[in-house]
């Protein structure tokens, strides 16, 4: 409830800010924002090389291409030099050790980068992985890399809650859920071997409906993810959940994952008010009974349906000290909170130390939608979707409605 009050207050303020200037974001005091590129299309995740070259992954082809490389050759702070390549749509993109990694909805590719972090052969990437589940629903493949030569990819469940008939009121849950063999989790592959399929990969963690945000945390050397929780509790079980409960539940979740762990989907969901794993009603739950006893608990739960699309651990020196090793999470914003207003569409900060939250989450950057209240996500002018940390310690935020990228800085006084 406190969060909602804060949210309303902050929305109120951001309204006045955006009324003056359609671009300015509402940020904590001392921070500034600048739009560094505009109208790049459906920009999903972004990655930045140590020299500032920025890569954008597109969800819809532009002139037949799905990756944009941007440079700021004249050093005026705005990216003016662009190259389009990669003939596939997708979400995931990462730069590591002079390689660019990018995902389509069923494969992962790798491009060697030269000394200036430019692709040596943009038309002929190596195909690292192919044949991953892609049934349209939750098909985006987010990626991140560790420091031991592995790449991690989310394979979202092509389903809401593993019913016999997806998203049909009254259809029971499949027990055990067959989807989990090839989706609903994180898979680990070699970051250098070509043409791997499921057989060469490891199901690193399971019971994750649809991870879109993920990042490797170098402070504690573990994988962390943000998960999109299930839909339709109220619509399918009005006798157990009223509209308000269906808007708030279940939590969107933030996990630290170790190899072999299970986060409980589809059998249970996280109730952020009770702080318990509650048995899904499709599997016999009544909103109270607990479920998935062996599943891990999240580090934190957020209000339902906010869609955490990107996760980034801040390691820069530019922002004040309390931000170091904390998590930024970009929320794409909800569609599923009717009759309530939709919520999200902002970047959140979670203060952390040693891989554990040290305080509550707070809204860090707001005002992307250009409106103070949103009934339907269609009304949002921009929706945060990707995050990257620039070499100078600024934070970049991408938008997949119109393809803008903001740079958020903390200028020294």
């Amino acid at each position, binding site marked *: 409830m406190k969060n909602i009050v804060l949210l309303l207050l902050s929305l109120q303020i951001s309204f006045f800010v955006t009324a003056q200037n359609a671009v300015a974001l509402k940020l904590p005091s001392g921070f500034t924002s600048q739009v560094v590129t505009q109208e790049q299309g459906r920009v999903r995740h972004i990655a930045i090389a140590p020299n500032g070259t920025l890569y954008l992954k597109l969800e819809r082809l532009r002139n037949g291409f799905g990756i944009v490389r941007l440079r700021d050759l004249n050093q005026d702070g705005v990216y003016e030099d662009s190259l389009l390549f990669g003939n596939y749509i997708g979400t995931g993109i990462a730069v590591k050790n002079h390689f660019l990694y990018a995902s389509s909805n069923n494969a992962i590719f790798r491009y060697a980068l030269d000394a200036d972090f430019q692709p040596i052969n943009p038309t002929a990437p190596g195909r690292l992985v192919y044949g991953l589940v892609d049934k349209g629903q939750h098909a985006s493949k987010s990626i991140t890399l560790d420091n031991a030569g592995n790449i991690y990819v989310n394979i979202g469940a092509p389903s809401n809650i593993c019913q016999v008939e997806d998203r*049909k009121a009254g259809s029971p849950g499949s027990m055990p859920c067959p989807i989990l063999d090839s989706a609903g989790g994180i898979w680990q592959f070699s970051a250098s071997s070509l043409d791997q399929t499921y057989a060469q990969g490891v199901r690193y963690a399971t019971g994750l409906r649809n991870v879109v945000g993920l990042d490797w945390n170098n402070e504690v050397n573990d994988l962390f993810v943000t998960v999109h929780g299930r839909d339709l509790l109220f619509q399918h079980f009005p006798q157990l959940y009223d509209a308000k409960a269906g808007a708030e539940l279940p939590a969107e979740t933030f996990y630290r994952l170790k190899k072999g762990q299970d986060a409980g989907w589809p059998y249970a969901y996280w109730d952020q008010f009770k702080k318990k794993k509650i048995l899904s009603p499709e599997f016999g739950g009544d909103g109270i009974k607990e479920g998935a006893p062996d599943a891990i608990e999240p580090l934190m739960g957020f209000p339902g349906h906010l869609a955490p699309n990107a996760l980034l651990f801040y390691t820069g020196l530019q922002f004040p000290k309390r931000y170091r090793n904390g998590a930024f999470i970009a929320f794409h914003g909800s*569609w*599923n909170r009717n009759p309530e207003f939709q919520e999200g569409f902002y970047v959140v900060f979670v203060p952390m130390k040693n891989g554990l939250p040290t305080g509550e989450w707070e809204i860090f950057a707001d005002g992307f939608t250009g409106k103070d209240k949103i009934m339907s996500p269609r009304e949002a002018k921009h929706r945060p979707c990707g995050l990257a940390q620039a070499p100078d310690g600024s934070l970049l935020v991408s938008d997949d409605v119109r393809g803008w990228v903001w740079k958020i800085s903390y200028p020294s006084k």
Partner: protein
Amino acid sequence: MLRVISIAIFWMCLSSTAYSQGNQSPKSSIGATVYQQYCMSCHQADGGGVPRMTPSLISTSYVTGDKKRLITILLQGLNEPIVVNDEEYYNPMASFSFLTDQQIAAVLSYIRTNFGNKSTAVSAQEVLQLRKQLSSKK
């Protein structure tokens, strides 16, 4: 304090979801009720859908065109990629065959005459006929 705010939020929600009830017959208010209960979560209060997830119901050929095709979507659901307004959609829509013929006719008439659509109404008789046809084909 919290209570006042939550009442205020509730009131704002109600007032903004209220539909313009101007020239609607009692029949289309059944349609509005069915829409709000069964369709609105996905297709949204304004019928505009959700970008990349749920197609719009505003002047699409599925909504304003052939009634048989439209009734069939509700009776059988839709689970194949479709292109609406130049955008591809993949999420499945489950069947709503559990609704009565009256409810289906009312909600389809509602979407065909709201959200800026100006098409003809669907009758319960038409729904019943198609229901029979589809079940005899099985």
